[in-house]
């Protein structure tokens, strides 16, 4: 089985390169078309090195949400987003009162600018229904990620 080298490029550095270009990137194991996130050198379950990088359309659904109240700071949203391509990631929903973010809300990615200490990273903003309908705008996995879907999207693809 081909095991990729880590001498030239790391999975995280490829992800960050895409972030710098304003793109949310993820991987797909080409053995069985399963989406993979967080980025890895080898695919989970199979250990396969046949991982292909793709750029997400950036459309997803809020799977869960909380609001953190750090001392002397404005309330901060932290959410888990299910992307239409079939992977889940932690992020933040912006351009909305943090307490108004709702499970099931449709969202779209935007790259948060970086600084000397932190590379750019993906955040999300609320989406209008017509713009973000999974049947219209999402990728092939859209139908599986309806709001209320309880289990991790990556499990659904592997027949768990």
């Amino acid at each position, binding site marked *: 089985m081909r095991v990729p080298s880590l001498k030239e490029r790391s999975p995280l550095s490829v992800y960050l390169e895409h972030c710098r270009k304003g793109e949310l990137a993820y991987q797909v194991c080409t053995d069985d078309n399963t989406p993979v996130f967080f980025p890895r050198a080898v695919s989970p379950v199979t250990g396969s090195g046949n991982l292909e990088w793709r750029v997400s359309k950036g459309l997803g659904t809020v799977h869960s949400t909380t609001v953190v109240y750090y001392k002397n700071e404005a309330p901060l949203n932290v959410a888990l987003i299910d992307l239409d391509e079939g992977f889940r990631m932690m992020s933040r929903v912006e351009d909305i009162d943090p307490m108004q973010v709702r499970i099931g809300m449709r969202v779209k990615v935007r790259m948060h600018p970086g600084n000397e200490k932190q590379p750019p990273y993906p955040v999300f903003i609320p989406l209008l229904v017509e713009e973000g309908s999974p049947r219209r705008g999402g990728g092939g996995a859209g139908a599986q990620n309806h709001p209320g879907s309880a289990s*991790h999207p990556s499990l659904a693809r592997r027949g768990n």
Partner: protein
Amino acid sequence: MDLERGSVAVVGAAESDLGQVAPDTGIVDLMAQATMRALDDCGLKLSDIDAVLSATTQSRYAPMLLAEYLHIKPKFLDGTFIGGSSFMSHVAHAHAAIQLGICEVAVIAYGSTQRTISRAMASAREYNPFETPYRPFLPASAYALAAARHMHEFGTTREQLAEVAVAARKWALMNPVAWEKEPLTIEQVLNARMVSYPFTVRDCCLVTDGGGAIILTSAVRARTLKKKPAYVLGVGEAWGHTTISNMPNLTVTAAAESGHKAFRMAGLKLSDVNMLSLYDAFTITPILFLEDLGFCPKGEGGRFVADGAIAPGGKLAVNTSGGGLSYCHPGMYGLLVMIEAVRQVRGECGERQVKNCEIALAHGNGGVLSSQCTVLFGSETAL
């Protein structure tokens, strides 16, 4: 070959000083103190100990530090670190080592000074490029995400979460060494300072100093000692995920698997259990564990704990020490979860003693609902 039900027992159990300890107290001071108290408890000597198991956030070398402090020469050392449930895992490992004759007398110990030196200093979070930039307040925010999902899917309410805190407080008021000394109402839980929605400060475990130690040996040796042994009837370990972004289902933990393994080894049913010690890091966790261990159907945990069901005088005796929410929570809490279960089985809980407590279940949780371990302790009668 597998672990043999009842072949190993806890013979000594003791807490270190709890709550707030003197400046410059080391975690190993606390571990050594607890170890000596646990030895007094069973009448064994320091020189009898030939296995040391521990895990702490303040040192990666925990078992080695304890061995060095007390000049123990262990035949078996274990530093398995899987979060707060590590100690239940240590019970399983010590059990195997004793059963195989690798060692005879094992101490499992823990110590933390997180209140004195601050939580941030005691448990520095590791950097995760896919979580840290978003600044979740870990571990609270991870559990809050699970709670929010449970509320969405099953209609669990903040009031029901608060019932868990209110019940814990009622038990704590019967425990002389508990940190909290005042009654608590649902209103007070809901109106306390918000930490990570839906959790207020009162939905979250305490931040205290503390530690403990338990001594395990073979059942044969246990019967020669001065106190009634608490036999290990069943133990089960399970892992589900490590980071909250990768939890397969936010409302289902691996406790279903660990509980099943423990009950199968013990040959027991849920109705055999007289007392439950469930790791209450946050108000959502006893709700999830009651469901996943099978005491109520999935999604019914909030309704189950309503109206004082797990408070003194309720349907089920849960966290009789007052729990991590009101008694003590020194960062990693699994050892103290087991100490209360052992004490209940030995009939030592005074005012909060559950009548005829022959079997107690101790369930530990580690990381962000990540590792789940269940231990069933029983008296001689239960064997």
